[in-house]
């Protein structure tokens, strides 16, 4: 339970950092960390494949993708945040936290015991026997990531030529 709470706190902290940090790269990295933590939480909640995909898909590929994006977004002219937003955002955040706390409290109390179903078993088994379809999707995600890199790293000169 303690670990759980630590992880959740970490998730929240990094998510907040992802938003508040001025340096966009750092923000992106924090988001990646947050995703990683989320993946761990999934594992601990006995959702191993969810964890796997969260980490592999979200933390992995997507982070790569948007770091690239940011890299391409000319460094230096970051978006400057309005002051009002700076004030408003924490307020929202606190509000959110309070409500979330309330919700989670009752949530954790009411969450029923995990039924033992066909979805337990070793990770490999689960992946191949029961979640086959997800493989197709994963292929798709990876393909998309690769293609995205291809597309975004294409030489700019080429545009002019064609």
């Amino acid at each position, binding site marked *: 339970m303690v670990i759980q709470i630590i992880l959740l706190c970490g998730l929240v902290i990094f998510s907040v950092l992802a938003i508040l940090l001025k340096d*966009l790269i750092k923000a992106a990295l924090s*988001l990646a960390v947050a*995703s990683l933590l*989320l993946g761990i939480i*999934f594992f601990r*909640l*006995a*959702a191993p*494949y*969810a964890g796997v*995909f969260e980490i592999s*898909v*979200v933390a992995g*590929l*997507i982070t790569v*993708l*948007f770091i690239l*994006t*940011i890299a*391409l*977004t*000319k460094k230096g002219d970051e*978006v400057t945040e309005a002051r009002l937003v700076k004030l408003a955002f924490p307020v929202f955040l606190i509000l959110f936290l309070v409500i979330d706390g309330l*919700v989670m409290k*009752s*949530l954790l109390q*009411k*969450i*029923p015991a*995990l*039924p*033992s*179903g066909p*979805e337990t078993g070793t990770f490999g088994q689960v992946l191949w*026997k*029961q*979640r*086959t*379809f*997800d493989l*197709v*999707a*994963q*292929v*798709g*995600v990876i*393909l*998309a*990531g690769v*293609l*995205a890199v*291809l*597309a*975004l790293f*294409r030489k*700019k000169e*080429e*545009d002019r*030529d*064609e």
Partner: protein
Amino acid sequence: MVFSFIVMPLLVAAFLPLIGKFSKKLLPDVLTNAALAFLVFNSILLVKPVFNQGFIVQNLHWLGEKVNLQVALDAFNLFMLFTISLVSLCISLFSIDYLEHYGHKSTFYALFLVMIAGMNGLVLVPDLFSVYLFLEVAAVASYALVAFGLGYDELEASFKYLMLSVVASAFALLSITVIFGMTGSLNFQAVAQGLQDLEARLVLGVCVAFFIMGFGLKAALVPFHAWLPDAHPSAPAPISAMLSGLLIKVSGIYALFRIVYSVIGITPALSRLLMALGTISMVVAALLALGQKDIKRMLAYSSISQVGYIVLGLALGTPLGIAGALFHLFNHAVAKGLLFLNSGSIQHITGTRNLEELGGLGKMVPVTAGTNLVGALSIAGVPPLAGFWSKLIIIMALVQAREFGYALVAILASILTLWYYLLIQRQAFFGRVAEKWLQVREAPFWMSAANVVLALVCVLAGIFFTPIFKTWISPAAEALARGIQQVLMWGL
């Protein structure tokens, strides 16, 4: 047969970069369009079996062993597949000429096909987690495609889109996880069954809220819409058409309502909430559209507004409401696709999208102007175009359900809709030709052809409203409504 909707685009996409090495234009063009044409054809072929049996379930065999690859096709899915295939075929036709000056056609097409595969997958899978995954497939492809132009604006828009979208996905995933935690299964039917036996209204309530936020963001419901007016205009025109016409509907509306209807079950209270969200989107976005100077931005806001209609109809939950909403979904996909493509034509012709610089193009580019008019009037709900019927049915459903207030707002919003579309007409097409546009020429063949095809669909769907409604819309609506009946109420 049914698998081809997912596998075929993926396969073609995988090979396209290689093919691109040999043939920069011709082969990618032909392959992509052929693949999409095949999908359209395929979906038409499937109409009869689905119509007769009600649904199709297919399993895939791999090396003689039965693997757990199961897809379920009912009339609702099929309807979505058909819409996706048809609109994306027109978009890829348009891209033949439009992508000339972007370069890297093969990569573009590959991403494009991956996105389609993602959407098709999303539509076909009967499993919560798969839904999430295919959502990501389509989303990742779309991030890249939004930034395809590589300009500063495109990248910034793509970044915002990505950042918000990721948050949304995370919440959706969280919700899926919690549900899985509670029921121990991910299959729609099994989850629905599992939820019946549970007494976990509060948890489920929060889950629903997360779903609404997650998919609502994908669907760009106000107040989760803010990424859309940046992302959609920045993308190349075909991609804008794709995003506005299809992606927000598939990954937002379809996913949300599939889960709400088939898994969680809709209740009067939930219905009211979603209706309110839909109505707010409808009005707020329509007002925002009024103030835009950039055609594509205006169209983007218009998408939000129209999504509001669809959500309103679906959330109402009566068979008539669902039918109207689905028909509107189709009409909006076609018409908004048409309008975005058309804005691409305008940009191609004049080099600008700023309404204030345009003027009187109607005389110089009659095809573009005419198709734009058809699309605009269809979305605004002016008869005899298709959009009229769908709005009519939605409002009929609202009145039947005695939701007079919503009906009135929906009616008034359609006046606003017509208003801003008339702004486009007035500033871009209808009027005296501005000096500097005296030399412009009509858009290239494939661009015009794609526009004309979509415009024809708008007109024909309006005129042959009855057969379309009977063969496509009402079975789809029934399938969805059946889903509602199957799932028991979760409280309230």
